[in-house]
């Protein structure tokens, strides 16, 4: 995540992967939202977690 995130390319690729329909007038807003999510994810991703830090699943077998 060190390179500049290209929201337009990401949306164009993922809409095909996921089989989505995105009208052209929705597209800039969808791109803005994934860009905001990427920014948030980058902040979390840049935090050095110990490898033993695990998610806390609710699932119990």
């Amino acid at each position: 995540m060190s390179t500049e995130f290209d929201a337009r390319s990401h949306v164009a690729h993922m809409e095909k992967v996921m089989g989505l329909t995105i009208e052209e007038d929705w597209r800039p807003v969808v791109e803005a939202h994934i860009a905001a999510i990427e920014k948030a994810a980058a902040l979390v991703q840049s935090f050095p977690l110990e490898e033993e830090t695990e998610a806390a699943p609710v699932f119990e077998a």
Partner: protein
Amino acid sequence: MSGSTDITAMTAAEIAKAVTGGGLSATEVVKASLAQIDKRNPAVNAFTDVTADAALADARKIDEAVAGGTRLPLAGVPFAVKNLFDIEGVVTRAGSKINRGNAPAKSDATLVQHLRRQGAVLMGGLNMGEYAYDFTGENVHDGNCLNPHDLGRMSGGSSSGSGAAVASGMVPVSLGSDTNGSIRVPSSFCGLFGLKPTYGRLSRHGTYPFVGSLDHLGPMARSAADLSLVFDALQGADPNDPAQAARPALATHEKIGHGADGLRIAVAGGYFREKAEPEALAAVDAVARALGVSAEIDIPEAARARAAAYVITSAEGANLHFDRISLRPGDYDPDTRDRFLAGTMVPAVWVEQAQRFRSWFRERMRKIFEEVDILLAPATPFSALPSGTKTITLDGVTMPARPNIGLFTQPVSFIGLPVVAAPVWLEGALLPIGVQVIAPAWREDLALRVAAELEQAGVCRAPIAT
């Protein structure tokens, strides 16, 4: 009690006492609530489904039971629920167009059952932001829910009707859901006491989900005592909610008057003192002064906590909605549609990192709660925004309004801590604003006691909007 106005001004505790004592009938209370809904709802748009006939039938049964000597802790107390709660015979809209094509619910949600069993009377379903992905109270399908204190402003969301119905005196108590702040935001904007309990405390069975790993349910009311009365009634083990923790019930109402003496309280600093308008900080300071609190504790990595909740919400919410957003995107509210579409495109690595960070942040907050019993923080960065506001500017940074109204609530629910949103009216203010009273996990009683003390001191209050 003479007229319906007097009845609608009563707290839940006062109603239950009067109905139990025979001074008032549940039927009179329900009729007063229905009259207030008729009077106020056309302007406020809090209710989407009024179940009048069922409410009157319930009231008659309660009157008979009380006359026969049955004791019910919530006898005759009218309440209403966000329309993502199942109500038997009513379609669970979850604020959407799509879900109203579903069959009516076959039974009530668990929490609705708990309250009805204890004598409360369900008045109907309440407006909400579509699929709970909202902080504004705006909804393109059912119309915007407006703030009873100023009809030109947002009620806050996504439990918008839950806030507006209580603030306008239609019901003394409502239930809402809170994934990232959706009880605390409308409590702040509408000037109410709102409780988001510990994650895993209350059953969510029979409610439409949003983000399973972050979804909470809880009550909103016009007094801290009512909040605790209802919270106690909502508790109980339910095998149908896989996330409900195996914890004993916590009796909070009997301790509500114990006050804040002896509790170690601090103001949350750092992140919680930035990106806030003056009224938000002034409200926290007023509460701190009233409690004699001067300590401030920095909450490390709160911005990352908020960011991680943001990522999890986008991906988990989009997963839940994937079939619908793939096949019927045009039937969504445009304000949620584009967020759900974006959420389908989130790499798994981002989500897993956010969930792992959640464990780290929980450990840090546990350490902080070894030093203090209560933290105080703003509930929202500002009082209710004018309806239709699309962007906000905080600390010189302009950002979209809808996702950012909850920037102070989101880091707290991220790790499931219990919070009471307590309403403050600053001197000369025309609008209320909430303060979060945050307690350690499983200690809702502490937050409720502090809120009650603030109410007793006159710093927090929740008047009906006139």
